[in-house]
């Protein structure tokens, strides 16, 4: 595939003398810090968005669809009125949309592995997790886009968060931190499975039920008791509750602690696992 000629005319040939000059003019600089290498990979992720802006569609169109569909289709049935349901579901949809987006971190990593450029990254003398951390950091920008779209749409539809702009920003930050932790689960899956499609399927098979078996859409009190017990300990429920609390100004500090703790544990377990798999990949 790399050798497939395209219809573009070839460029001018290389100039041997210039190649020699280019060789002699370079001295080896000190290697970049882990942070600098990571940010460079984050920049790579941004460039891909710049060249293929369509890939932002899934983080913009889908959330818009969810907000409109759930608010107007189910709002009356679940909460009695669309306005009341919007207050309940908007932070929930924020959580759901951002968490769905984390699956793409795994898909993107799996896609990357099929390309020769990974060999070059792995043969560079850089901090070894940098390509992974960098791409996950880059993905955070996608989460931010998804979150912003949802909140702006909510405000247009009449959502008025009690804690104002600071509350919304705090909720967004909390969701993104959790998403950062969760995306390591999907990068691990991305390295374990063979095709991007398999990663996508496995990812959604996990995230879909977990999200629906939470308090994102419905008040758990209406559920059978066994289900209610599960929903109440589901970290996604706690994240949704904490986000609502931050946006309304009545957050429980314990919930925030649990969310941050879960993100930390996910990162501590799955980030090293991802790095190890990435290193040992043949």
């Amino acid at each position, binding site marked *: *595939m*790399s*050798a*497939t*000629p*395209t219809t*573009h005319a*070839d*460029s*001018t*040939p*290389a*100039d*041997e003398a*210039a*190649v*020699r*000059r*280019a*060789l*002699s*003019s*370079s001295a*080896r*600089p*000190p*290697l*970049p810090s882990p942070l*600098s*290498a990571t940010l*460079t990979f984050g*920049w*790579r992720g941004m*460039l*891909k968005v710049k*060249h*293929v802006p369509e890939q932002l569609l899934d983080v913009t169109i889908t959330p818009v669809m969810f907000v409109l569909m759930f608010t107007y289709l189910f709002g009356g049935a679940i909460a009695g009125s669309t306005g009341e349901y919007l207050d309940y579901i908007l932070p929930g949809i924020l959580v759901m949309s951002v968490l769905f987006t984390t699956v793409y971190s795994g898909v993107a990593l799996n896609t990357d*592995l099929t*390309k*020769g*450029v990974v*060999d*070059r*990254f*792995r*043969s*560079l*003398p*850089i901090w070894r997790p*940098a390509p992974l951390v960098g791409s996950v950091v880059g993905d955070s920008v996608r989460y931010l886009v998804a979150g912003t779209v949802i909140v702006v749409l909510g405000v247009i539809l009449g959502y008025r968060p009690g804690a104002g702009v600071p509350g919304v920003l705090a909720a967004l930050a909390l969701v993104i931190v959790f998403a950062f932790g969760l995306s390591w689960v999907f990068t691990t899956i991305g*390295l*374990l499975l*063979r095709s991007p499609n398999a990663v996508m399927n496995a990812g959604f098979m996990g995230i879909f039920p977990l999200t629906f078996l939470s308090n994102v859409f419905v008040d758990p009190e209406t559920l059978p008791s066994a289900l209610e017990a599960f929903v109440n300990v589901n970290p996604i429920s706690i994240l949704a509750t904490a986000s609502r609390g931050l946006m309304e100004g009545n957050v429980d500090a314990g919930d925030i602690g649990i969310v941050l703790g879960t993100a930390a544990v996910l990162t501590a377990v799955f980030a090293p696992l991802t790095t190890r*798999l990435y290193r*040992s*990949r*043949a």
Partner: protein
Amino acid sequence: MTTQSPFAIEATGLVKAFGTVRAVDGVDLAVRSGSVYGVLGPNGAGKTTAIRMLATLLIPDSGSARVLGYDIVREADKVRSVVSLTGQLASVDEDLTGQENLVLIARLLGLKRAQANARAAELLEAFGLADAAGRLVKKFSGGMRRRLDVAASIVVTPQLMFLDEPTTGLDPRSRNQVWDIIRALVDGGTTILLCTQYLDEADQLADGIAVIDRGKVIAEGTPAQLKASVGRGALHVRLLDSDQRPEAERVLAHELGTVHLEADPAALSASCADADRAAEAVAALSRSDVRVAGFSLGQPSLDEVFLALTGHPAEEYADAAAIADQEEQAA
């Protein structure tokens, strides 16, 4: 920081198996600093696996190797800081532009933003890619991609460069350009380990060659020694009319001796090292009213080298596909 040893690469008994397939089965290599060393073999012979071990991308099952004095397992980070790799798939990012690719690598090697931009511009100019700097690499031709790939490998001049089949699939013009670049690198003092399927390429570039087959080095020497061990070149003839091949075979057998009928029904070849005798043989064909579409005097092909060295043709092994599969699964 470099070693006292005159060898840039010293490998002993390298072994790597994927499942039951021993892709590399006890390879020893000694590559002198400042030379171009060719590793020659068909697909699936174990070239890529060997290069990936030396470039620290794979850990050998057994055996050991030192690259510029550093152990490839225990001192992998040090190895990575003095080598660069141009992989079999072009090791560039298709979703970025040529310029962005080089800036990315430059930044990862520690250049500051302004330096990285300047370095990228300098390399694009030197490699004849300045016009395509802002174009996405997926729209590059195969030759441009390879040049960018090599440029990315010398953003910071490496002491040792691994080149895995740098011209496979390229047209002759692009191939010559890549060869010119490799020669310039060698003049600049870089040691090169070159994997190739083409004897021609190893002959053009390499000071020493190891022929590798089924994971083992089966012959080693200078290109001249290797060709001498294999025998002679061959006259390749293509006929206008395949019905005349029996007649052509008779004439060539009379003039040159052993004749080989090729898969193409209008083509045949005869071993011959001497241009004058080849010319006479072609003239003899013409006297016998055999109409010739074209002819060439070639060096022994890799096929012939293989046949001579191993007694079996250099086909792509069924194992090759199995190895590719296993490598993928090993993840």
